């Protein structure tokens, strides 16, 4: 019983730390994102130039990571909101499990679609 209790505290804390870290990462990205997209003001040449720079494999790799960060924060955030509302409070471990499954499924699906669009998946 003690072990289970200890584990439960650990899981929630772990989810909370990841939520904070992913959130900090996302706001850092959003600041850069607004700046990158603002190149639209400079016209087609200016925008396509920066998009070409961001089209290199390094940034594409980072983009896959970004999608994973977004979906973790999104599904864990919905889980936090449900618990704050007061529903599923007693089932928060299950709720975290569901959030993790949805996170991994969406990350995998969107990641696969991105790789396929870039021509990285021979079977798609």
């Amino acid at each position, binding site marked *: 019983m003690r072990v289970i209790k200890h584990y439960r505290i650990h899981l929630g804390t772990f989810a909370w730390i990841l939520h*904070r870290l992913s*959130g*900090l990462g*996302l*706001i850092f990205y*959003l*600041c850069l994102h*607004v*700046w990158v*997209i*603002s190149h*639209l*003001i400079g*016209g*087609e040449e200016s*925008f*396509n130039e920066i*998009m070409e720079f961001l*089209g290199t494999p390094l940034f594409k790799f980072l*983009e896959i990571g970004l*999608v994973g960060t*977004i979906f973790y924060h*999104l599904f864990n*955030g*919905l889980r936090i*909101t449900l618990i*704050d509302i007061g529903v599923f409070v007693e089932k928060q471990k299950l709720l975290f499990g569901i959030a993790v499954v949805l996170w991994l499924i969406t990350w995998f699906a*969107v990641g696969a*679609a*991105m790789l396929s*669009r870039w021509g990285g998946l021979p079977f798609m």
Partner: protein
Amino acid sequence: MVYRATVRSGGALLWFFQRVSGIFLAVVLFLHVIMTHVLIRGDLDFADVAGRVATPLWKTMDISFLVIALFHGLYGAWVVLDDYIHVQWLRVLIYGVIAILGVILVTLGILTLISFNPGG
């Protein structure tokens, strides 16, 4: 040293708004990711974005998205930093930087979004 909170993390209203904006962002960001990474073909270029942003509905949607996302993110960052930084001048400095960053990015983002019109 007596701890005095010159700047605070926020109140119940902001906590509530963080949840409401979170639900909005969960829906809109999900669609944003699907639209920009799954539904388009080839690489994203000027024509793709310009065509979409030019319509009034998208413009309204994107401006709401921009403002709410920046508020949610910058306020969230402040809540996190508020927990770990206890040096007064540094707290005031970070609070100021976050506020200024918010004003600059909202302005830059809106200027970007309103620079497109239908047919041009």
